């Protein structure tokens, strides 16, 4: 019953998306001065809102099916198990292809409904075009769900027990990683709809940028958290001790983030200065394109990846068709319309806008580099040459643009809009640029480390100081929330950069075969293998080592790495154990039994590695603060406007325009 209800709600939502698109097209073809609510175009907003409710109902139905482990539903039977802890039963809802697509569609419908409900600033026609674009994109995904990935399909005969969930995915990190990434991807779909809407009506204005900005900020914050969580999950769950592998699936989440970061900054320029109009629209299209290309690469199995969980070429063809329609369509529309979007305001190179353009160019270049590296194996495979592209390409080539971008990031926020004088910022700029040089030389001489981590550490100091400069000489309590957001996000970049560089430069790795009672040394840690014993969990058995670790002769801490065997489905995983200090982590992995009563242990001392994720969290926090600041500012303005209108209609003489 619940499954049928969910499916019916999904079909109804799809039908409403069709209605929404139809009404929007009629509204746009019709006369330009159609007042909202007049004629069929008035159906656009209600359709979006009801569609959102139906999608929420449909997703709620699927959640309930998973919570109850209804084994007559194919998706539940193949992805869940009655013995699983409740949190992982719920996480299994989106830990598979069909459920995650339903989540995608639901979030998209909810954002569409939210825009329809609250957004009143844009011209009516742009609004209708935006919601029409949203419905058009939505329809493709509804078709995908209903025709090729129905999450509610029943089994002819209920099975006795579910097949479980990939044990690597039975982890608290997974409960949050995909949904946050999806919120990010889908938030970018809203930016995409706004961009297409503005292109259709040729209304690319600062107001448009202000309307789009909260969505970009929100999407970007979610992407940041999603990538950070995913990186940490891969770090401790896969047991490889690394936090970024340049794997296609990771790149698939990084590329939309890079585009969204560029979009965020160019939208700020458009909102504040009415410049970079066409460029902002272009980035709006590119950011969502990257989300879709990412989804395509992950789901189609076209690239070989270490963690592709839901691979199916047929679905790949479907997503490719959607990709062609939306991205191709938007690009063609952009090419046709770009020269009718009037050029925006001009500005000098030495200005806030100038610095932001440099940031945009660098981010786009890095995006291009990552895209090329990700697709290169695909390209050569067409000529039957197998290659694998990894860190030796991405790190140095990306650094060509990344390092200068960091320098601009340190100085840029100090610059004024439109035109600044070099004399005004000369001393701070020289200080910020000289600092990394001095640090690099100092560190390079005193410690023997590689060039890239060396530059990274030196630059992180500059960025950290530079990020705080906008607060200089201001009353901290009167600094707007959005500025705090920028400061914190930029400071987070410095923190993450320092963590990445320090871990790369100073990491100490040891692989030993230790007897019980034996003590080994890894960097400042001395680690004793105390015992190895079997343990059992709800759906796995494991051998667990007890390690006694002491940092530099300090107090002894226990650490328990495990080698786990899941029995539903059967699979072996290693559960690493971490000891966290403020200045890094000791990462231990238990391997198999070696000959002569020895146990394989892999030990890493990773100085400051946690700063990578602290930085990521700070960046996302900055985004969230900026979002709150912008939205509350908008609300204040709206209330003030409402009061104005009230007074005017009441004939308040004070508000009467003297002219």
């Amino acid at each position: 019953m619940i499954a049928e209800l969910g499916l019916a709600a999904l079909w109804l939502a799809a039908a409403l998306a069709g209605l929404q698109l139809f009404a929007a097209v009629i509204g746009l073809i019709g006369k330009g001065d159609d007042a909202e609510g007049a004629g069929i175009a008035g159906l656009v907003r209600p359709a979006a809102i009801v569609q959102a409710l139906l999608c929420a109902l449909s997703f709620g139905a699927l959640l309930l099916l998973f919570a109850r482990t209804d084994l007559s539903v194919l998706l539940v039977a193949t992805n869940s198990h009655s013995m699983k802890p409740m949190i992982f039963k719920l996480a299994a809802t989106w830990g598979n292809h069909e459920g995650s697509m339903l989540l995608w569609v639901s979030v998209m419908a909810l954002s569409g409904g939210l825009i329809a409900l609250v957004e009143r600033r844009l011209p009516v026609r742009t609004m209708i075009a935006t919601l029409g674009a949203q419905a058009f994109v939505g329809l493709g995904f509804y078709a995908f769900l209903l025709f090729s990935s129905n999450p509610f399909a029943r089994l002819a005969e209920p099975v006795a027990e579910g097949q479980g969930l990939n044990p690597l995915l039975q982890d608290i990190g997974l409960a949050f990683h995909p949904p946050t990434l999806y919120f990010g991807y889908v938030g970018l779909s809203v930016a995409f709809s706004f961009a297409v809407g503005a292109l259709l009506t040729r209304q690319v204005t600062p107001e448009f940028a202000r309307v789009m900005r909260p969505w970009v900020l929100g999407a970007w914050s979610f992407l940041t958290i999603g990538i950070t969580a995913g990186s940490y999950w891969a770090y401790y769950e896969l047991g490889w001790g690394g936090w970024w592998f340049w794997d296609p699936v990771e790149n698939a989440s990084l590329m939309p983030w890079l585009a969204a970061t560029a979009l965020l900054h160019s939208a700020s320029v458009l909102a504040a200065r009415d410049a970079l109009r066409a460029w902002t629209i272009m980035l709006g299209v590119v950011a969502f394109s990257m989300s879709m290309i990412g989804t395509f690469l992950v789901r189609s199995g076209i690239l070989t990846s270490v963690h592709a969980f839901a691979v199916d070429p047929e679905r790949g063809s479907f997503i490719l068709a959607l990709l062609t329609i939306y991205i191709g369509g938007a690009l063609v529309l952009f090419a046709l319309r770009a020269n009718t979007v009037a050029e925006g305001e001009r500005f000098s190179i030495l200005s806030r806008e100038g610095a932001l353009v440099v940031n945009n160019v660098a981010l786009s270049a890095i995006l291009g580099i990552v895209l090329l590296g990700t697709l290169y194996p695909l390209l050569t495979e067409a000529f039957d040459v197998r290659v694998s592209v990894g860190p030796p390409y991405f790190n140095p080539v990306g650094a060509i643009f990344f390092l200068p971008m960091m320098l601009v990031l340190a100085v840029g926020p100090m610059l004024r809009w439109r035109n600044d004088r070099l004399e005004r910022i000369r001393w701070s700029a020289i200080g910020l640029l000289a600092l990394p040089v001095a640090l690099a030389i100092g560190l390079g001489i005193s410690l023997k480390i590689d060039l890239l981590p060396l530059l990274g550490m030196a630059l992180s100091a500059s960025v950290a100081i530079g990020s705080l400069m906008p607060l200089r000489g201001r009353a901290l309590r009167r600094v707007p929330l959005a500025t705090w957001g920028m400061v914190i996000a930029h400071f987070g970049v410095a923190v993450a950069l320092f963590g990445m560089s320090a871990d790369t430069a100073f990491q100490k790795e040891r692989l030993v075969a230790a007897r019980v009672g034996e003590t080994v040394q890894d960097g400042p840690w001395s680690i004793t293998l105390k015992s190895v014993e079997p343990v059992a969990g709800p759906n796995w058995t494991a051998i667990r080592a007890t390690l006694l670790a002491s940092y530099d002769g300090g107090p002894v801490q226990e650490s328990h790495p495990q080698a786990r065997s899941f029995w539903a489905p059967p699979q072996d995983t290693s559960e690493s154990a971490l000891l966290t200090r403020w200045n890094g982590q000791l990462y231990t992995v238990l391997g198999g039994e070696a000959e002569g009563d020895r146990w394989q242990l892999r030990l890493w001392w990773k100085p400051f590695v946690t700063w990578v994720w602290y930085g990521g969290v700070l960046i996302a926090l900055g985004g969230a603060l900026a979002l709150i600041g912008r939205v509350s500012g908008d609300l204040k303005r709206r209330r003030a406007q409402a009061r104005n209108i009230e007074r005017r209609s009441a004939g308040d003489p004070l508000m009467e325009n003297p002219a």
Partner: protein
Amino acid sequence: MKRLRLVLWGVVAVVACLFGLFAFQLSRPKDDVVVSAMIGKPMPQFDLKPSVADRPGLSTRDLMDGKPKLVNVFASWCVPCAAEAEQLAALEQNGAVIVGIAIRDRPQDVAAFLQAYGNPFTRIGADDISEVQLSIGSSGVPETFVVDGKGIIRYQHIGDIRAENIPQLLQELRKAES
């Protein structure tokens, strides 16, 4: 403005090519098999002592007698090797000449293993320190190589041989003959 338009249509064209490439790749069967780098290379020089009393040892010269052979890398302590014994017997019945390399093993264990699961091998060399195994690019047991009459490696099968792999191995042997 005209130049901007040209650039934009260029972008559209590049994206179209990209999607074309995606479609082309999707339409091709996915081939995830990484072909061994040893294919086409001659067997390295080695001379292994016999592993068991009733079969001679194995040297590079033995693989250059003009007749293609299957070289099976196995060990008595390896469970999948026991599982594939049936398949090796079937291959032998189909006329394949099979020689073995026993990895890090004791003569009495190998003898017991052959006693229990059958002995399809004409020769068995003892590779006590994985020396030959490593030099022919084998990372584990069991693995099976097709070597032609001149001692050139033609094909590598990683993991145990399943019933469905037999036709392919026989075909590779025939190919190696020509």
